[in-house]
C-alpha cells in the first residue's frame, strides 16, 4: 500500500536534515504504529508524504499503491487515497465545515472520474457518520475547526476521514488532547474503517490508543530513522521503560 524507501528529507530554508533514511512499508489491511521521542521526525514524515511545502527530499522514494507520491500535487495525493489526520488541525474562518467537506468529497470523486455525490446523499451520509462521532449539527455548520476544542478538532479529522474513505490513513497524534470517552469514539471510528484494502499508519506517544486500535506492527523512530520494528509488545516496552534502552541498544 505505502512504500517508503531510504527517505531523506531536509528543510528547504535551512541546512537541516530531518529524515535520514526512512524505510517503511505498510501493507493493505494492516495497522502500523510509529512511536518515538519528540522531534524525531514523525510529523515531518507525515507532512512530506502529504506534500507540504518547506521540505526537500534529497534521497529516496515514497509510493502509494505503486504510484510515486513525491511527484504528485497535494490534492492529487489526496485523490489517490492518502489521508493525513493532522496533529494540529487548521482553523479556517469563513469556510463552513459542510461546504468544505462536500467540496473535498466531490473534488476527489471528480479527480478519480467518479460521479459526484448529490447534496441529499451527502447530507444523509455525513449526518450518520457525525452522529457516531458525537459531532452535532451545530458543529457541522460552524467554520472549519474554528472555536472547536482540541478534542473536537480531532473528532472532526476522523469525520473527514470517514467521509473521504481514503486508502491509506496517517494519523498524527490523533489521541492527544482526547478524554477517555473521546479516545474510544475516535478508535471506534478508525476501527470501523479497517478493512483488507486499507492501510493505517498511527503516530502516537501512548500505548492507550493502541489498546483500542490494535497495531500489527510497531516502529520506533529516532533522529530521523526507524531504529526498531516489532510487534505490539514493542509499544508496551516503550510505555514501561521509555526510549532509553532502545536508543542504547542501537547506538
Amino acid at each position: 500500500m505505502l512504500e517508503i524507501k531510504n527517505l531523506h528529507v531536509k528543510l528547504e530554508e535551512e541546512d537541516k536534515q530531518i529524515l535520514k533514511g526512512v524505510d517503511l512499508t505498510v501493507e493493505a489491511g494492516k495497522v502500523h504504529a510509529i512511536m518515538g521521542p519528540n522531534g524525531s521526525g514523525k510529523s515531518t514524515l507525515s507532512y512530506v508524504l502529504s506534500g507540504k511545502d518547506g521540505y526537500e527530499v534529497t534521497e529516496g522514494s515514497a509510493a502509494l499503491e505503486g504510484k510515486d507520491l513525491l511527484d504528485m500535487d497535494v490534492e492529487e495525493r489526496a485523490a489517490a487515497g492518502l489521508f493525513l489526520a493532522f496533529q494540529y488541525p487548521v482553523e479556517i474562518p469563513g469556510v463552513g465545515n459542510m461546504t468544505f467537506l462536500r467540496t473535498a468529497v466531490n473534488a476527489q470523486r471528480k479527480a478519480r472520474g467518479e460521479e459526484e455525490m448529490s447534496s441529499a446523499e451527502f447530507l444523509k451520509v455525513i449526518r450518520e457518520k457525525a452522529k457516531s462521532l458525537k459531532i452535532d449539527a451545530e458543529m457541522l455548520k460552524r467554520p472549519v475547526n474554528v472555536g472547536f476544542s482540541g478534542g473536537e478538532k480531532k473528532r472532526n479529522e476522523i469525520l473527514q476521514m470517514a467521509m473521504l474513505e481514503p486508502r491509506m490513513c496517517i494519523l498524527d497524534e490523533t489521541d492527544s488532547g482526547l478524554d477517555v470517552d473521546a479516545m474510544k469514539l475516535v478508535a471506534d471510528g478508525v476501527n470501523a474503517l479497517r478493512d483488507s484494502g486499507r492501510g493505517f499508519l498511527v503516530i502516537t506517544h501512548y500505548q492507550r490508543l493502541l489498546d483500542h486500535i490494535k497495531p500489527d506492527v510497531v516502529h520506533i523512530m529516532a533522529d530521523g530513522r526507524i531504529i526498531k520494528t516489532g510487534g505490539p509488545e514493542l509499544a508496551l516496552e516503550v510505555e514501561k521503560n521509555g526510549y532509553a534502552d532502545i536508543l542504547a541498544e542501537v547506538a
Partner: protein
Amino acid sequence: MALPQAKLDATEARLSALALPEGGWSDPARQDALARLRAMGLPTARDEYWKYTRPDTLVTADAPAAAVLDQDDETPLFAARDRLKIVFVDGVFSAADSDDLSLEGVSVDRLAEAKDIHWAKDLYGVLEAQGQTPVARPLAALNTAFASDGVLIHVTGKVSKPINLIYRHEDSTSDAILHHVIKLDAGAEATILENGPAAARFNQCIEVDVADSATLHHIRAQGRDHERRAATHIFARLGQESTFKSFTLTVNGMLTRNEVMIDITGDDAVAHVAGACMGDGAFHHDDTIFVTHDAVNCESRQVFKKVLRNGATGVFQGKILVKPGAQKTDGYQISQALLLDGDSQFLAKPELEIYADDVACSHGSTSGAIDEEGLFYLRARGVPRGTAEDLLTIAFIAEAVQEIEDESLQEELVERVAAWLARRRS
C-alpha cells in the same frame, strides 16, 4: 483663506464645462452648493484627504473614456427578484426600461421632474452641506449643484419590495451626475438595491434621512466595467432607534472613491457600513468613511474587505467620532486586504476620536497573503489549489458580506464574486 491658484484653476476649468440645471425648488440649494464648491475648490493631489487617491481624473472637464463592458456572460444582478426597477442609462432616466413608479408605502419622484415645492427641499443639499465639516467633500457639493437627475424617495410605511436603481453604461464617454434623496418616516422600512457602472465617470450623491425607528437596507454593486470611474457620497442622518445598513460590492473599475458619512443623532440607533471589493490590475478603490456618534447607546460597524491582485490598490480611510455625551457608544471598525500577489497594495488610515468616557470602540487594519496553512489543509483533503484559493478568498470577504441582513442577497453577491474568481483562473 485664499485657495491655491492650482485649485482655483482646476475648479474653474471643471465649472466651465457645466451648467446649472433648471431646478425649480432645488435652485437655491444648487446656488448654495456652487458657492460652497467655489469656496473650497475641487480636490487636488496635495489635499490631505486625497493623499492615497489621485483626484485628477475625477475633476477634469471631460470624463476620461471608459470602454463599455460586454456583459453577455452574466445576467444583471437582482434580475430574478420582485422589485421596483428604476433605470438610468449613462445618467439619463429611461422610462421605457423602468417600472411604473407607484408602490405602496413609498412615493418616488424624479429630481429632474419635481419642479414644484417639494418635501425633498428640506434635505436636498442640506445633509451634504452638514457633511462638509470637519472635512470638505467638494465633489459632493459639485453634485448638489449640477446633478442632472436622481430620485426622491419618500418612504412612509413598510415597502413590500426593494427599489432597484439600475445604472447602465452604454456610451464610452458619458459623465453622469445623479443625486438621490431618501427619506424614511418614523417606523418606515425599505430596501434600496443599486447596480451597474452608470457611466464612464459617475458622480453620485445620496442623502438619507432615517427617522425614529425606521430601517433602511442599502445594497449596492458597482459595475464590472474595467475603465469606469466613480466618486460616490452617502450622507445619512439617523434618528432614535433607527437602523441603517449599507453594503457595497465593487468588482473592477479603474477608480472608485466611496465616501459614507453617517450622523447618528438619536439614541439607540444602529449604523453598519460594509464593503467588499475585488480588484485586478488597473484598479484603485477607496473607502472613506466618517461615522459621528452624537447620541447615547448607539452601535456602529465599519467592515471593509479588499481582495487585490496584479498591482491593484486599496485604500481605507475610516473614522469614528464620538462626541461629548455620546455615552455607551459601541463602535467597531475593521479594514482588511487580501493581497493575492506582491504587486498589490493596501493603504489604511483608521481613526478614532473620542470625547466620551463610557464607550467601547475598537478598530483594526491588516493586510496579508492567502493563509498557506489553510490552503495546505484544504488541498490535503483533495480540494484543488484554485478552488481552495477561491474558498479562502470568499471566506475572507465573508465578514463584510454577512453585514447584509438578507441571506439570499448575501448568496447572490457571493456567487458574483465566485464567478469573478473563476474567470481569473480560466
